[in-house]
């Protein structure tokens, strides 16, 4: 990524547009193609469903309901924003790690641990003043996620263990830790089903409409912070250098091991914050079966947003809108919400297949869809431990 900017340079408007196009062309085409594939899936699914009336226009009904559900009313827009906020934080987590050449597939586990940490502290402080309760609960989420990110970072730095393998395993561990803690120590007494008590005063304040909680603002603050960290500080320069060329970073006197641990911890913290925002802003409690796709969707968000903090905001908004609008789509068109997974996966597939897209659409001078492919495809065996 070219992050250089110059105040002395002036761009002609035409150049600006060409530049913008070069960045958004592939994501845009991927999204449109994915919608087309989704339409085919909807039509085809009618053929296999017994008794269903065949309706060639069903995709249109479904997509318009999806749009309606995501942006059709003030409440719908707020719901979209609520779904977007954790995706922004999760996307930042994965995208930030990509900048350092690390593939944080463990956003899911860090997200769950963050949720657990914030709910535990939230319950304990449910009766304290909101300011104290909220800030400490958020901090707990951040730290719990960071701890879950520290583990793979540390293991990679000392032994060269690949972060992909370690984080995937930690995702499972996180699942069962939640089940054990929420079903055990944190379980509310006197309830038949396993559920934690309410977080009370640690719940995030509602700022917009019925559900627009403060986590939305928090996510935007995180975007600004991460962008500032990456592009304005020397630490960010070190992180980007290690990601772009670890050998050159080593020669330049940077310490790849330390930076690996630091980056993974910070990435974990961001994902943990996403978990905190969901439990403190929406659910206010937790069940042992607390699941969410945020952690995994974050990977797609980071890739669609080209690991750039601003790009991640737009990608998260798209995925948030899909999630928020899915319910109405299910009601009005009878299309199960799982279609959203199909759309998301297809978008990703097209992005990864960018050489094909470039050829078919004759995209010249357009940047590659996923510049982080190298990070993704680094194999376990081929990896040399950072020295």
């Amino acid at each position, binding site marked *: 990524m070219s992050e250089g900017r110059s105040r002395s340079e002036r761009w002609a408007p035409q150049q600006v547009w060409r530049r913008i196009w070069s960045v958004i062309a592939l994501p845009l085409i991927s999204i449109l193609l994915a919608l087309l594939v989704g339409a085919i899936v909807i039509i085809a699914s009618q053929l296999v469903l017994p008794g269903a009336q065949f309706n060639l226009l069903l995709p249109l009904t479904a997509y318009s309901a999806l749009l309606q559900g995501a942006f059709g009313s003030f409440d719908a827009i707020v719901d979209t924003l609520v779904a977007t906020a954790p995706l922004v934080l999760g996307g930042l987590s994965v995208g930030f790690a990509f900048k350092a050449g690390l593939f944080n597939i463990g956003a899911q586990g860090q997200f769950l641990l963050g949720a657990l940490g914030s709910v535990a502290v939230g319950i304990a402080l449910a009766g304290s003043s909101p300011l104290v309760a909220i800030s400490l609960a958020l901090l707990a989420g951040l730290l719990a996620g960071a701890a879950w990110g520290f583990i793979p970072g540390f293991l990679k730095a000392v032994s060269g263990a690949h972060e992909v393998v370690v984080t995937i395993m930690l995702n499972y561990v996180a699942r069962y830790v939640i089940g054990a803690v929420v079903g055990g120590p944190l379980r509310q007494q006197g309830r038949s089903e396993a559920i934690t008590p309410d977080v009370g005063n640690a719940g995030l304040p509602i700022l917009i409409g019925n559900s627009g909680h403060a986590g939305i603002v928090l996510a935007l603050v995180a975007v600004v912070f991460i962008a500032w960290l990456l592009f304005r500080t020397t630490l960010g320069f070190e992180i980007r250098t290690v990601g772009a*060329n670890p050998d050159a970073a080593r020669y330049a006197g940077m310490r790849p091991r330390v930076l690996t641990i630091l980056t993974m911890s910070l990435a974990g913290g961001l994902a943990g914050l996403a978990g905190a925002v969901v439990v403190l802003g929406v659910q206010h409690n937790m069940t042992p079966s607390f699941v969410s796709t945020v952690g995994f969707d974050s990977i797609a968000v980071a890739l669609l947003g080209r690991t750039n903090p601003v790009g991640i905001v737009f990608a998260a908004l798209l995925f948030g809108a899909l999630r928020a609008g899915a319910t109405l789509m299910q009601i009005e068109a009878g299309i199960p919400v799982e279609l959203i997974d199909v759309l998301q996966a297809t978008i990703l597939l097209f992005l990864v297949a960018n050489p094909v897209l470039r050829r078919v659409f004759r995209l010249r001078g357009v940047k590659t869809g996923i510049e982080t492919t190298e990070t993704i495809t680094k194999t376990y065996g081929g990896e040399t431990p950072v020295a």
Partner: protein
Amino acid sequence: MTEPGLPAAGNTSMDEPTIEEAPVRAPALEMRGITKHYPGVVANNHIDLEVRPGEIHALLGENGAGKTTLMNILYGLARPEEGTILLDGQEVTIAGPSDAIARGINMVHQHFMLVPVFTVAENILLGEETMAGPIFLDRKEAHRRIVELGRRFGFEIDPEAKVGSLSVGWQQRVEILKALYRDARILVLDEPTAVLTPQETEEIFGVLRRLAQDGHSIVFISHKLYEVLEIADRITVIRRGKVVGERLPSQTDEDDLAELMVGREVQLTVDRGESKLGEVALEIRGLEVKDDRGSIVVKGVDLDVRSGEILGIAGVAGNGQDELVEAIVGLRHAPVGRISLRGRDMTKATPRAINEAGVAYVPADRHRFGLVLSFPLADNLVLTDYYRRPYARGILRNDEAIEATAEERIRQYDIRTPSATVRAGTLSGGNQQNLVVAREFARDLSLLVLDQPTRGLDVGSIEFIHRQAIAKRDAGTAILLVSAELDEVLELSDRIAVMYRGRIVAIRDGRTADKNEIGLLMATGGQARAAGGAAESGPAA
């Protein structure tokens, strides 16, 4: 205005001898009016090239002059916008590499396209299998043909040898055999001597001459002027996509060719003058270094480099030079031995501590250690200084200072770029190297480590970098130069150390050193000394 439909309308006026007039001596290859644009540049601007049967035709030009584009067009990898290609007087359209091979055009790339774990025969057969029936290879027949081909062109080759165990010179012969096996009539060699010792170069020239006598046409791409003069029958010089001259070796010399190539007068040998020796800047004692696979490749090296001198290490690539250099700059751990800088022990120092002690490094692989290609020029220019004032204020980057310095260095070191915000990866090789040189030279230095500083660069860039190095030496910097180009070592060094299999086998005075002797030491480590009787002084300290 010409009709757009007319093919190659631009060069109809250039038609001189028609094909019927000279049917016997029709050129084996003729490229007429080849034009190819890439965004922003005219890579080939109406280039005419004519190669006769049995001719060794040298194509000379700086990096980025358009040699590669022209050869890619010949090989079917790129389509010209204008112009025609004629083979034996017949106009042809070359659809792709396989079409080119079918028409007898073959290319030997600078980086060999061989599978190291395959045998010679397997490599040669790859893609052109000689079959005995529908399923099985006819190995016997293939072996027979390979041995016979080798003999015809003056060398014995074992078809069963693993390619990975062969020397670079022999690997190149395998590449050539591969082409001959496919009945190549036109052979394009891209910088074939870049990786060879002088002796190996002579041997390969012998092979090429036999090929030419046998009627093959050879296009020899190079930027080494004396080699071109030695081997070529005719020389075409291109500059900025245009043919700027055609010469016969008998009518020209190195200065004339260099001027044609660069477009201005070039001083080929930098006047190095006298060196003013100072105290010992770098002292190495009994150093052992391991390579990535854990085997010891630097085996007890003792070396002193004094301030104000250039010590050149000559050696065939892969004799431990890279590992030695990486240990000196702190990128590689040295388990045994001692490295000290101006009397200070630096054996276990970090790259940053070594850098701060005034050591600069121009790495052999600039894409690996030298640059971050995806970063703008400005960031690359402060890669080792980014954390220091004025480039950093506390934890913040100071973009103004970074940019100001970048602008200054770009001017000072003649880096050709539209701006300091352009990514380093978009620059040409020579400009990338200037970028590394700009960053590393622009400080007060006590030791400068140059590892293959001009590999792959053109005459103009080499001249510039050599001048800068001499200037640094005259300013009192100790310079350690490693190069596989013996000429470079001979030209610049005040003293020459020959490295062979991890050891320094000889040290010679740079002014009196004999090229053949050094070449022999590089190739054999001095074991042939008894036979040659060339050297009396043994391995020196």
